[in-house]
């Protein structure tokens, strides 16, 4: 009877959205309403919240988040609409008639105050012992509404046990205010669907399938829920205590590699506007904290391009030149550990399409405890390898049993941008004041191609800069090497490059239009995978997927809050830095050349590089025993 789709896409409760007119100048395109006795004209279908924001009226919100569909559950944004019996949640109310709205009546203020009081009565713990102190939306609201006592009591004991099972995400439901942002993030934004409300009434809490620990469900560790949590209910698994210990231990040689995105985001943790790149300052700060070597993950990003690009060319060669129909094309990128776990859970039958190249983090880990250890004469057992990442899934990735190619755990700790910012503050350093300095040898400063890995489309752009040049001997035909079709925050981007005038060894590619797709956010990844399942990607060669919206710069380890605007500014910072560099192609990185000449002497995708720089995947499936 129901006209339901075959594959039911899980959705949280979605509000009905009144479509806004395309042209507000058409008749009936706008409505004139009154907000606090002031007449304003707004497009039909605008919510009260949007209308108020347009008119400089601040409405408090908690469950509302610009990235998510509205829920209308916290009720803190209620306003009075004349003629309606009850207060209306401004975030859900579409304006379709000339209503009169009052945003600050005694009833409204009392209701908001009551709601904050009620939330505080169920919110366990004290602000000063909380890691979200001064970056907590509930705390901010309590201050805004002058809460100076617990009017309805305060929890004396925690109600729930903290779930520390996951390598990446820790859930403390005692801090949860049930705004369901995490649920909507998981179900709607990422279409993973691990989190949902369980039980009802006062027993309601956010949980997983059968309330299993997070490590035992199909969580992909993307950490997007953390970025959108208004309180301290969600956090990444913080290794900084162990890290301090390693730093203080004179026997340990602690090296850190830093990914491109944290540099573009960490300034926010120190009160700077989004979009300040802090590469040089960060290097100095890391040394002052006590890291023995500071390396640039972009070096292995360049290495990734060499390995992954060669792998693509090998696949193309087999498919085009030898007519081997078993070759899996398009090749999918494998840099994003959230995406890798996503495909392992949701599309295990398509794992063969995934590039076998490790992510830059894990390549670096393997190189540090082999090549670097040998070159610098340090016992790899004494090396503590840390990775500064914008990502919570990287913590899970470095703990994968496959990631021990060096004979040790290749990367010991994954550290997020937020956690490092905390360490820097703890060390008494104000990052923006730091003098700039370079990365350490022997890996030195890397190319801009590695840098743009941080933004969605960056891996594709970097790969194209190299692959095109390897095949044709010429630079990619884009002004300033900026492959614009790869850029921007559109969910799924498709473009192509014509391969012409190929070198002799690649003559089989002559005249082929190299088609590629770039997608970010696993909801978009799902769309691409369904296209693959339906056989619609037969003529596509390369697909880049990043688990997080915006790519790594929007990762689950980045500063809170997040919004599309913030992510755009981080992207701008990354692209600007790329353009400022003279070295912008992975294959031209002298250190990459050096490592292929002195260590991986048989070149990319050789036996040794397969052992160190490539991996295999697990068919996890959706049902875990």
């Amino acid at each position: 009877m129901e006209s339901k789709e075959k594959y039911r896409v899980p959705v949280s409760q979605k509000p009905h959205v009144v479509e806004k007119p395309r042209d507000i100048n058409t008749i009936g395109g706008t409505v004139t309403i009154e907000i606090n006795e002031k007449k304003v004209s707004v497009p039909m279908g605008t919510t009260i919240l949007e209308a108020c924001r347009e008119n400089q009226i601040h409405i408090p919100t908690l469950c509302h988040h610009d990235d998510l569909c509205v829920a209308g559950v916290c009720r803190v944004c209620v306003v009075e609409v004349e003629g309606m019996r009850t207060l209306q949640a401004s975030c859900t109310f579409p304006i379709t008639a000339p209503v009169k709205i009052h945003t600050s009546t005694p009833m409204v203020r009392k209701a908001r105050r009551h709601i904050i009081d009620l939330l505080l009565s169920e919110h366990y713990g004290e602000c000063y012992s909380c890691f979200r102190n001064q970056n907590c939306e509930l705390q901010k609201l309590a201050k805004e509404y002058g809460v100076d006592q617990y009017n309805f009591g305060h929890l004396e004991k925690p109600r729930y046990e903290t779930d520390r099972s996951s390598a990446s995400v820790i859930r403390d439901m005692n801090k949860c205010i049930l705004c369901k942002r995490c649920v909507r993030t998981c179900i709607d934004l990422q279409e993973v669907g691990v989190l949902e409300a369980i039980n009802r009434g006062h027993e309601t809490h956010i949980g997983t399938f059968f309330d299993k620990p997070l490590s035992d469900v199909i969580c992909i560790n993307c950490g997007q829920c953390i970025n959108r949590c208004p309180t301290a209910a969600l956090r990444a698994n913080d290794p900084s205590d162990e890290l301090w210990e390693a730093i203080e231990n004179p026997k340990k040689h602690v090296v850190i590699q830093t990914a491109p995105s944290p540099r573009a985001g960490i300034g926010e943790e120190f009160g700077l506007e989004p979009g300040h790149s802090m590469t040089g300052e960060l290097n100095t700060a890391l040394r002052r904290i006590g890291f023995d070597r500071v390396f640039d993950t972009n070096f292995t990003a360049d290495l990734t391009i060499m390995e992954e690009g060669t792998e693509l060319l090998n696949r193309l060669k087999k498919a085009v030149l030898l007519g081997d129909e078993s070759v899996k094309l398009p090749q999918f990128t494998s840099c994003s550990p959230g995406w890798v776990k996503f495909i392992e859970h949701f599309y295990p039958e398509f794992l063969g399409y995934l590039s076998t190249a490790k992510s830059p983090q894990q390549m670096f880990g393997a190189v540090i405890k082999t090549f670097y250890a040998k070159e610098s004469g340090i016992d790899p057992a004494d090396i503590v390898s840390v990775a500064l990442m914008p990502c919570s899934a990287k913590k899970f990735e470095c703990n994968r049993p496959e990631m021990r190619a060096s004979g040790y755990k290749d990367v010991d700790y994954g550290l997020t941008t937020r956690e490092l910012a905390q360490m820097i503050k703890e060390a008494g350093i104000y990052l923006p004041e730091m003098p700039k300095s370079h990365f350490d040898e022997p890996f030195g400063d890397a190319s801009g191609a590695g840098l743009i890995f941080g933004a969605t489309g960056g891996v594709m752009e970097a790969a194209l800069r190299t692959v095109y040049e390897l095949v044709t001997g010429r630079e990619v035909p884009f002004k300033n090497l900026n492959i614009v079709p790869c850029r921007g925050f559109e969910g799924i981007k498709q473009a192509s490059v014509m391969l012409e005038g190929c070198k002799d060894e690649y003559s089989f590619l002559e005249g082929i239009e190299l088609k590629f797709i770039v997608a970010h956010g696993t909801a978009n990844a799902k769309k691409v995978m369904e296209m693959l399942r339906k056989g619609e990607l037969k003529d596509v060669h390369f697909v880049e997927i990043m688990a997080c919206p915006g790519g790594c710069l929007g990762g689950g380890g980045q500063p809170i809050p997040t919004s599309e605007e913030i992510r755009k500014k981080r992207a701008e910072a990354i692209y600007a830095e790329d353009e400022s560099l003279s070295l912008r192609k992975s294959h031209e990185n002298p250190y990459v050349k050096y490592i292929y000449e002195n260590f991986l002497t048989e070149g990319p995708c050789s036996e040794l590089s397969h052992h160190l720089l490539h991996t295999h995947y697990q068919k996890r499936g959706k049902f875990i025993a």
Partner: protein
Amino acid sequence: MKPNGNKYAVRQGAVLFSEYAPGSGIKKALEIGRENILLELRESKLKGRGGAGFPTATKWMLVAAAKSEEKFIVCNADEGEPGTFKDRVLLLEYPELVFEGMLIAGYTLGARQGIIYLRGEYEYMLKSLESYLEQMKEDNLLGNNILGNPNFNFEIVIRLGSGAYVCGEETALIESLEGNRGEARNRPPYPVNTGYLGRPTVVNNVETLASVPHILVKGGEWFRTFGTDKSTGSKLFSVSGDCERPGVYELPWGTKIKDLLEIVGAKNTKAVQVGGASGSCIPKSQFERTLAYEDAATGGSIMIFNESRNMLKILKNFMEFFVEESCGQCTPCRVGNVKLLEGIEKIERGVYTFGHLNKLKELGRTMQVASKCGLGQSSPNAFLSILENFKEEIFNKNGYGGHNGK
């Protein structure tokens, strides 16, 4: 009058319990056509019998006006309000009225699908209801080309709820029908535009739908001869508590509480809870009030308490119910009910202050206006009305004065 197994109540009444020839409602409907059905309903001034009292004709007209290829008729048989059991009687003894009401709605609004959302606890009726539906199919009252009318196709399916009180709220009911958690949706939009599967949907109470065939056969004007100006027709009341003859009664709207108490043989009555746990508690001094939408409104539940009852314990029982039955999505209802219950427990232990109780009353009023759905908006009613109407008993007579009760 119908034979029934109930030794107390006799099924007699002006409208629903009056004589009815099965099939006559739909035949009349087909005869007079869609527009006249809506006009007749408007003439009757029938209002929703679930408790909210929304004009049925308006609801149907809104769905009729909504443009969509698909529309749905949902019968809300999730009779969950404490003290209500009249829909059970209708479904068990008068299924023809309910089904025909849905059929008429389907015909009028161009819906092809009717769904009965049956309370989980009523699973025992499922067999008899389904066999009745089978019979209707055989009689060509359901299925394709009903009664020989080309293009009049209508199916009725029965879906079971799972015991959540909130699913009686129409949008939570629809969420539940769609296979989601039973939680109220944001309104607007209303189900008449965006209901089941996003389609225009009529959600009517069992009793509302059962009234429709009678109205069509005997006329809206006839229907209006019963009840008051604003509350037309008659109403089924589920009477329980301290009386000699509890049961389901059909009485015209506008009946005085005092008169109802006499009919059911209630003696020494101290209070009547009108409208179930979410309704309000009416003290003896107000028994002159009438049962009507404009006065003491009810979806049918009448609970009678005599002098021997402890009002605070009754209130506590209601609040425990709401703490358990809140769906838990919006803050005022999820946490507010707990705070009200804690307040009652404090009174019980004698460790309250009037300052705190006043805060709780204020909170109750916030819950009434700030909760997302009718559950949280009505759950403080009992708290506010019992503490107001029985303060003498609670704080003085029963010794809940407490050492702190100053």
